[in-house]
């Protein structure tokens, strides 16, 4: 016995929805323009605000919002054992310790400018561009500023210290924002020494995972310092910057959210009203479909898929236009996730807006709709 299909397959529904959209170019274009307009309106207003907020926050972040700097005088008792204690602390994105600075010169120019070199201790220096495992103690890595100061055109050469200590420049470092205060940066990465070879530190730099973690992490570090003489240790944080960052993010963020919600509300209601009108204009069409055997569910599906196709196209066009306009006016772009979210929300608003008239159209007796003049 041959099985009787209960209705059209999903590809058939999609093709029919697409054909229906193409067969009614005026109403389809109107829907498409409404969704594109909604998307553009949101992106050119609240999207611009979000982009500006991101730019400001990013500027604050580049100033080292999340960093904590511990300075210890000679004899303070801060040593590399602190690095092992930091391993157990949550909320830390990066940490590293530095020994006391000592001057070195380019061995080729003994009378040249001295640059302070620091033994650098820590598990990971890849942020600074130092290759993993480059912790033999005799290799040094210099920032472009340090190389210029040393009179080296390339990151090659020998360095000599006042006590006859020598280093080989093995490469250059890309100074991360949290180490910018050490410029001209010249380090000799050491890894973390064994427990029986603890070494004194003069500087400890810790980067918290988030700005709001700066204060609790700084408190925890202070408690863990176990310095012999706490008076010789100072803890500097970027707490004020973190507070400023939180304020910028909070105020601009809530303004952007309110603006987004407001514009979505207005344009969404407008889109819904127009879509309702379009669907009501086509009542006779749905009446005929119902009379010929389309179920209520199929009518709703066809209408929603048709709106989905048009809304996706509209959202894509609206996003492209907004990016172009923001680019031409040199305004900062909102993040990609924001662009996607606005696009998806626009499509969702359009589909939801067409749901009510679709249900209304599908619920009427077929012949009542078919007899609409």
């Amino acid at each position, binding site marked *: 016995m041959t099985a009787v299909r*209960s209705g059209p397959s999903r590809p058939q529904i999609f093709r029919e929805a697409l*054909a229906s959209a193409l067969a009614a170019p005026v109403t389809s274009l109107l829907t498409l323009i409404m969704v594109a307009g909604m998307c553009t309106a949101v992106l050119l207003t609240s999207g611009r605000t979000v982009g500006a907020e991101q730019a400001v926050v990013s500027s604050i972040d580049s100033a080292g919002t999340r960093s904590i700097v511990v300075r210890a005088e000679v004899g303070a008792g801060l040593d590399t054992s602190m690095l092992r204690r930091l391993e157990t602390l949550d909320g830390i994105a990066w940490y590293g310790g530095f020994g006391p600075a000592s001057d070195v010169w380019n061995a080729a120019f003994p009378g040249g400018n001295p640059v302070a070199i620091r033994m650098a201790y820590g598990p990971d220096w890849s942020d600074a561009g130092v290759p993993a495992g480059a912790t033999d103690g005799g290799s040094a890595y210099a920032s472009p500023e340090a190389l210029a100061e040393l009179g080296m055109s390339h990151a090659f050469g020998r360095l000599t210290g006042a006590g006859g200590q020598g280093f080989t420049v093995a490469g250059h470092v890309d100074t991360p924002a949290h180490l910018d205060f050490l410029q001209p940066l010249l380090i000799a990465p050491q890894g973390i020494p064994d427990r029986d070879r603890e070494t004194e530190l003069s500087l400890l730099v810790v980067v918290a995972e988030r700005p709001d973690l700066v204060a609790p992490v700084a408190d925890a570090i202070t408690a863990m310092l176990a310095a012999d003489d706490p008076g010789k240790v100072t803890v500097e944080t970027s707490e004020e910057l973190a507070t400023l960052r939180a304020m910028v993010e909070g105020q601009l963020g809530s303004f952007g959210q309110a603006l987004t919600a407001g514009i979505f509300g207005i344009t969404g209601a407008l889109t819904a009203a127009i879509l309702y009108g379009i669907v009501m204009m086509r009542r006779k069409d749905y009446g*005929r*479909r119902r009379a010929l*055997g389309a179920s209520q569910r199929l009518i709703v599906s066809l209408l929603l898929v048709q709106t989905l196709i048009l809304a996706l196209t509209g959202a894509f066009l609206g996003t492209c236009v907004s990016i172009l306009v923001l680019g031409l006016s040199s305004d900062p772009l909102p993040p990609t996730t924001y662009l996607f979210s606005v696009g998806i929300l626009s499509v969702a608003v359009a589909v939801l807006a067409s749901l009510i008239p679709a249900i209304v159209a599908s619920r009427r*007796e077929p*012949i009542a709709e*078919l007899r609409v003049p």
Partner: protein
Amino acid sequence: MTSPPARLTARALSFRYDAAVPLLEDWTSAFEAGEVVGVTGPSGRGKSTLLYLLGLMLRPSHGEVLLDGEPVHAAPDRARARLRAHRFGFVFQDAALDQSRTVLDNILEAALYRGDDLATAAQRARELMDRFGVGLRPTARPGQLSGGQAQRIALCRALLGDPAVLLADEPTGNLDAESSDLVIEALHDQAARGATVIVVTHDPTLVERCDRQLTL
């Protein structure tokens, strides 16, 4: 015929659009497979409404519509839609074509709702167009059609699924004598294939050629 023959019965059927004005009252009749029944009567007596009630497009105020002895008038929407798509064929008074789609799309519309293979259905649609001498390209739009051509397209759409019940509202209303003959033959052909054919008409030629007449 793809759909098995059907016996359609209206039992004590009543309907009113307006509560104060009854259109049909306690109307009973049975329609057998293989017969062409003509429904006639003055305008406004509910002939078209009777057709819509029998075709499950309206729910009666009272009474029942039975298909092969099973009451179907109060079936859930999905079941009624399925019956309309699979077992009924309709020719509406004004053809009711989608003006925005091609002639071929219009003929294939009910096939879509049945979930038929549309390539096979399109082949049969072209054969029906040839049979009824529509004389148009399948890509033509209904706006380019005369009233007679539109009505023949509506007939092609109704016959495409080889329905067990064919309901036609003034199918010869816009046709010349030659085209009317063609349509009347098609209705009888469908009855000969085992279908129940019910025609609402004012056309005396068509009434004369029906197997049975009912007057409202």
